[in-house]
């Protein structure tokens, strides 16, 4: 299969990464060569194989649901690109 410019634009939308037309062309070439390489997997018959989702086959441990971090608002907001001391600030979403 080939990944055309339309598909690249679609993936860029899904990824929330804007992309200009010049870069889209180069990207479509790169993705095509990578997918050509990836499609080698089609040679294998895997119908009866169970997918491996996690290598660490441990049971998840339960813990009590208790609050351990208190009064960390300042810490949390410290790295935000824009805030008003209480909240993160984003461009207006409701008219």
């Amino acid at each position, binding site marked *: 299969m080939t990944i055309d410019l339309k598909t690249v634009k679609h993936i860029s939308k899904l*990824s929330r990464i804007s992309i200009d037309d010049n870069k889209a062309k180069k990207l479509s070439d790169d993705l095509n060569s990578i997918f050509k390489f990836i499609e080698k997997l089609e040679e294998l018959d895997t119908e009866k194989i169970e997918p491996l989702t996690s290598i660490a086959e441990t049971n998840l441990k339960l813990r009590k649901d208790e609050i351990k971090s208190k009064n960390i608002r300042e810490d949390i907001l410290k790295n935000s690109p824009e805030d008003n001391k209480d909240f993160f600030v984003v461009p207006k979403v409701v008219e």
Partner: protein
Amino acid sequence: MSNIIDLKLFELVEKIKKKEISSQEVTKVFVDRSQKSKKLNSYITENFENALQKAKQFDEKPDFNKKLPGVPLAVKDLFCTKNIRTTAGSKILENFIPTYESTVTQNILNEGGIIIGKLNCDEFAMGSSNETSFFGNVQNPISENLVPGGSSGGSSSALAAKLTPATIGTDTGGSIRQPASFTGTVGLKPTYGSCSRYGIVAFASSLDQAGPMTQNVKDCALMLEVISSYDNKDSTSVDFKRGQYLKDLNENIKGKKIGIPKQYRVDGMPKEIDELWKKGMKIIENNGGEIIEINLPNTNYALPTYYIVAPAEASSNLARYDGVKYGFRSKGENLIDMYEKTRSEGFGDEVKRRIMIGTYVLSSGYYDAYYLKAQKVRRLIKNDFDEAYKKVDAILTPSTPSSAFKIGEKTNDPVSMYLNDIFTVPINLAGLPAISIPAGHDKSGYPLGLQVIGKAFDEQNILNIAYSIEKNINFKNNFNDWWIN
């Protein structure tokens, strides 16, 4: 005391414990050398002043029971360090200062280690040459304009150039072992679940592991002992009894069965690598081990599997970089526009490429054909190793299919760059431990490594085998300090 930089990590520890040298003396020597070595571009963030102060505090109130008493260490800039900037080599985290400490670096601090700086790496650990870093290329001290490998390229460069007595990296598909091999140093990727992933900037969560990078196998055992721990903050951390890797380090490998997978003899591999591999087999036999040919039939499918699984997980992990809570933000006309511009300007090309591959293979209509398929093949790859380990105790392979290449040589062809990791990627997919040790040079004098792969949680065994090979090889890096000014 100009010879401090030539001491091995375990020797530094001994001398500090015997009070022959102080933490301040040691820290100053490594800070001075790092300051003179800017040409290598190994560091992203320096923590020199703070480190010298910590060394002074250590000397005033020393605790010699620690495993790294007052020892200065620089670490890969993928570990969150409290109050020290952590960038993951990305513009999007250029100004990020964590308010918490990763478990692995906390373990280093708990054992008396002092962080002297954060080392360069490929952006979000995606790369094999350190050329995707927002903070620029790193020089391999072996020769000018040679890549140090990646993604832990700042780590391998700083270690080989003796700017730090040891370091830590992370390894998702080879990012510790390949740069170790390119710089004539030792690198170990532990079993998945051995070192906590808490506080490590996530790339592909089912593959990522932290591990030591050192000048020799003994230092590697010491560092592994320090950083490996069970951690309830990481749900994939495994609660097993950790070994006393240093105390139990032993060169006796009599009766060990070592597998040689014929599938690792790839086309176009330089003759020197094949010869080196044979040399490794010979040493093992001379030391009482037994060489057994084994079959890992699905080896050729490991890289294609990796380039589905890793980008898929990355696309999900990197969704958090939205310009809202931390990191870089670009201006947009509305919220969505802001997201799209932030991510377009904040991420570099390789990271964007991988996010897009990942998004695509997870998208509706393609999930079964790509992602599910890859997870099934991942099972086959793991089964290959399970089958092999019925017959052998460990596996010996080359670490990489070539030696270090020139900066810029492979940047235009992503697939040729990916092929670098052909011998290391299968191990991450199977979650196994593996160590790369320097074993010789190619015709240009560049280092080459051998990889010893173990059973899950059998780190002691591969350390011992590596130790036994190391003793018979007497590898030495030959370079003058060409970058010093």
